[in-house]
């Protein structure tokens, strides 16, 4: 009997939760704010879905309702990607060690 591909995706999902669990516990508490902003940025990889949605269908009419939702999602996700990574970078630049 063949295994449903869904099971494979579910396996990836569950294993990633475990990876996330151990990786996040090892994050130093002083970096919890950058952790939030960077998780925010990477969750915007949802832009992948937005791009597919925006480019779907014939190229004659690229502004069907489903495309428009895709374009809107692209803007939202792009704000998050650039905003999230840059603000994280800005914060991390500030963490300095004592001058010896």
């Amino acid at each position, binding site marked *: 009997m063949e295994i449903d*591909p869904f099971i494979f*995706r579910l396996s990836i*999902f*569950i294993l*990633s939760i475990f990876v*996330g669990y151990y990786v*996040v516990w*090892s*994050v*130093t*508490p*002083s*970096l*919890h*704010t950058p*952790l*939030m902003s*960077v*998780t*925010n*940025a*990477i*969750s*915007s*990889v*949802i832009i*992948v*879905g*937005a791009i*597919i*949605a*925006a*480019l779907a*269908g014939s*190229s004659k009419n*690229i502004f*069907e309702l*489903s*495309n428009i*939702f895709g*374009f809107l*999602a*692209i*803007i*939202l*996700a*792009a*704000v*998050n*990607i*650039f*905003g*999230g*990574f*840059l603000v*994280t970078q800005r*914060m991390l*630049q500030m*963490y*300095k060690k004592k001058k010896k």
Partner: protein
Amino acid sequence: MSANLSATFYLLSGILFILALRGLSSPETSRQGNYFGIAGMAISIIVTFLAVGNFGSGFIYVLIFLVLGGSIGAFIAFKIPMTAMPELVAGFHSLVGLAAVFVAISAFLKPEAFNLGVTGNIKLASLIEMSLGAAIGAITFSGSIIAFLKLRGIMSGSPITFKGQHLINLILGLAILFLIYYLCKSQLSNIFWSIVLISFIVGVLLIIPIGGADMPVVISMLNSYSGWAAAGIGFTLENTALIITGALVGSSGAILSYIMCKGMNRSFFNVILGGWGANDQTSDNKTKEQKPVKNGNADDAAFLMKNASSVIIVPGYGMAVAQAQHALREMVDALKKNGVKVSYAIHPVAGRMPGHMNVLLAEANVPYDEVFELEEINNDFANCDVAYVIGANDVTNPVAKSDPQSPIYGMPVLDVEKSKSVLFVKRSLSPGYAGIDNDLFYRDNTLMLFADAKKMTEEIVKSL
């Protein structure tokens, strides 16, 4: 690009995202980690373009919108003051949530583009996944908007509660599940829209009863939700990068919520159901009789600290409000010149989001190896000469250790009262967010400095 090849690249992105979080285990590796994250994102986007392979006029528009959104994001990232990080993060969560809703809507309207079947006959599993993704996304969106308004001060931080609130939430939650079931049977678009609409309402109802002091939990929780929403969409699109990311973000937010709840010694449900931060405790304050308080000025404080051999600074949200972090750094520099050993003690729930105080101190050029977490530094108070409490209150209240009747009993607190003398910068004797009197104010070794945190610190710098 073949589906197998692009799937491999998405896996690579997922791994880069894991490395991005892994980098945050220390400040030295964190910047490199952020580059891993950026690389992962770039790979995902480029691979998607190649996989879709449609470089017609639509492609130009995608680029335009990408640049438009990116410029807005970059502008915000450079302009935002560090004190406003909590509301920025809440705002960003709302965008992820809404993006998830939009992608789900788009997939529902045009399932062919996503290989999910045809309109009116979408694959059952996909239908469940996209409606769950849309529902969680919608809850994340409206919940984050409320959190944003509360943090920004546009909406009052006090909890909004009404009778039967939890019952309504329960009914709406069950309604969403029932509608998803019904959607699978009927494939009607009206049902899908209803799910989205009800989820928006649930998001609002879920966050309004939570008080301002519990915002660290709320932000972490919404962080987690945005991850689960992304994972739901990831299943719909059968995209590994999204599934991995969703799981990472989801568990990250959940762990942060747990840490925040633990920092307040409260259960997650206790926070979610509202409570604390309500003003009812302030009104029936039993200890209304005037207890003697020792009142000091900047010169007293400067004298005490100059002659100390070690000082521990305890910053709290009040420091952020008063923007006193830079003045504080100046004060510490002056003390160090006098040969005083200075360190900072940070409580897990200081500030309005996890790690908020650390960022503010880093911004004021405080080296991160002088900043310590509660467990690392709590034993040092007994050997320290002066504890300088600036903008913190409840997290120093010894009542949490001694009075089982107190609402904060059992909450881990900083043992500031063990230091030889305590300098407490505060505007008045009013209780903190928990609405309880701080026993520390009336101790013999406490000197109250009644002033704005920034002004007082600046005055101390002058008299040093």
